[in-house]
């Protein structure tokens, strides 16, 4: 986010949604660090990252789609299909992680591109197309899989990947494991894509004004294929990570996850109308939800308060953003 860091003026800094989020997160971290013994331990930080890895990976994909001015509701179904195909293949033929990710990512990408083609040619809001496709994908998956669970994966899959292993103060072993590595990789890849490449620029341009983008020669159809394909591929990758964490595949385990991911991304300040938003915001949005959940658990707050607090934070955050935008529009006018 070079543009973001260039604002040295404090007053300018507060125009940014990310600043509010970061302040809120710092506040939470300080409070939880003082209020609980476990929050600031390395072990807890690793646990928290692992448990929000799937949310983070999918949020990166949805971020790109939203910036392009689209939306995808069908990605949990895409992920579930990718997961099922990948798991079936590995159970039957064995393999390795490279193959697992390849199968899942390609499956997700193909389904994402199908969405893209429908969205582009039918000229109906993407939310409608992808809701319809969510039904189609989930319906077909559960029909053909009979809703059966898959488990009993080979050892290499069960053990995952572990770098820099260490033993935490609680006696458990922690390491840079598969979920964390993939999450970091996906964030880095998305940052490169959106910040350093021409495709990233074009995605922002298309989301800002798709007519204008088309007129300056950007291939809108190709870009749509890319954006939804990227979302699908990341959904597939997240599916492999989820399978590795839970060590099993349940066809309906991701049902309803689309709105949670959407909440995390919009909490990060990404605009629903396209063209506006930063990856930093998305990461902060995911982090906020993760810290909140983890903190409430550590504080011993009953789990049925979690959704309520999350809802309040979302309402609060989007209201501040909307009021901020209103004020800026007034100043410019």
């Amino acid at each position, binding site marked *: 986010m070079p543009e973001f860091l260039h604002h040295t003026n404090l007053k300018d800094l507060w125009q940014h949604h990310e600043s509010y989020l970061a302040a809120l997160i710092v506040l939470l971290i300080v409070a939880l660090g003082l209020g609980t013994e476990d929050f600031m331990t390395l072990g807890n930080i690793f646990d928290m990252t692992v448990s929000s890895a799937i949310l983070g990976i999918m949020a990166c994909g949805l971020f790109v789609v939203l910036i392009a001015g689209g939306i995808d*509701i069908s990605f949990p179904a895409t992920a579930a299909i990718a997961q099922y195909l990948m798991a079936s293949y590995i159970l039957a033929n064995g393999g390795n992680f490279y193959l697992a990710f390849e199968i899942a990512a390609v499956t997700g990408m193909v389904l994402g591109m199908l969405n893209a083609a*429908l969205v582009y040619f*039918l*000229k*109906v*809001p993407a*939310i*409608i*197309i992808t*809701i*319809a*496709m*969510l*039904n*189609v*994908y*989930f*319906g*077909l998956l*559960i*029909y053909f899989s009979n809703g059966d669970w898959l488990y009993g994966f080979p050892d290499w899959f069960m053990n995952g990947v572990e770098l820099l292993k260490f033993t935490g103060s609680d006696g458990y072993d922690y390491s840079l494991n598969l979920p964390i590595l993939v999450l970091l990789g996906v964030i880095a890849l998305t940052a490169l894509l959106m910040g350093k490449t021409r495709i990233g620029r074009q995605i922002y341009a298309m989301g800002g004004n798709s007519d204008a983008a088309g007129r300056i020669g950007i291939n809108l159809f190709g870009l749509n294929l890319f954006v939804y394909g990227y979302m699908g591929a990341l959904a597939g990758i997240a599916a492999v990570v989820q399978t590795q964490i839970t060590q099993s595949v349940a066809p309906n385990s991701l049902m*309803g996850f689309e*709105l949670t991911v*959407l*909440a995390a991304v*919009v909490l990060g300040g990404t605009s*629903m*109308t396209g063209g506006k938003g930063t990856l930093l915001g998305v990461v902060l949005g995911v982090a906020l939800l993760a810290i909140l959940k983890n903190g409430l658990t550590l504080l011993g707050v009953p789990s*049925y*308060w*979690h*959704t*309520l*607090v*999350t*809802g*309040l934070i*979302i*309402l609060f955050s*989007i*209201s501040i*953003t*909307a*009021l901020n*935008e*209103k004020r800026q529009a007034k100043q410019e006018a």
Partner: protein
Amino acid sequence: MDALMNSLKLPSDKNIRYLLVILAAIMVLMACTSGTTFFSLANLQSMSSQMPLLGVLALAMAVCMLTGGINLSIIATTNACALVMAGIITQHPDSLGMLMVALAAGLATAVVVGLANGLLIAWIGVSPILATLGMMTFINGLNVLISGGSVIAGFPDALLTLGNGTVLGIPMPLLLFALFAFGLWLILEHTPLGRTIYLIGSNETASRFSGINTRRSLIAVYVISSVLCWVAALIMMAKFNSAKAGYGESYLLVAILAAVLGGINPDGGFGRIIGICLALVVLQTLESGLNLLGVSSYLTMALWGGILILFIALQMPTAKK
């Protein structure tokens, strides 16, 4: 103005023609394969008692979509109303007075949620999808919190009749749906508010500059949507004889699907109640018909999505700008 309104409605009339064709095709298919069972009174009654819940929710979604908005909090609102009413009724199940108090409390809950949504969207300027997404999460949390996540059951017969009773052979839920669909139709097509709703959906800025109080109208729309959720809550409670946070979550996206299939333009401005009613009949006959043929309900779910895509594709020539 009338000429303009008429020409605006043309696409949805085409939509209605397509729906009728699809419906006829399903009817013929059913007549050929399992005619006597499908057209039996028992099956027709069962179909018409299943449809209204989704129907009322689709109306709640549609009225917001007509203004170019959306309401993702309908299921959460429905559950909130049901839990509030259930909580009060089960205190004194036999008292008619308590039943009335419960109904009023449920309605009040709906109005409060509707006002909150409306204020967020119209006054603070949050986009509807975000405002109602946040509201959905918040109310879901509240629902679990007040109910402790448990089932509240044991309702008096007066309430259960709403779900299972019949009048002249017509299931009560269908009558409730018809009543509120007619009411919404009256509001949309025969009141200034209705005209305003279509105008806001066509062009909100233009409507505001032409002197329409768009804020007040938008708030009214989200209150109407919530009140319809209260009706859905009544039907749901009576049907399940219980209330619980998390009931009916799969209906959220299906309600959008039904509204769009019924010809409601998600960008706002176009669509009529009659279209939604037809779409519901199409979805229900398809579901019941396939069920009779022994087809998996998941395949039906996929077909619903497929029909919507097919439908949108059929309308392509007019949708192209």
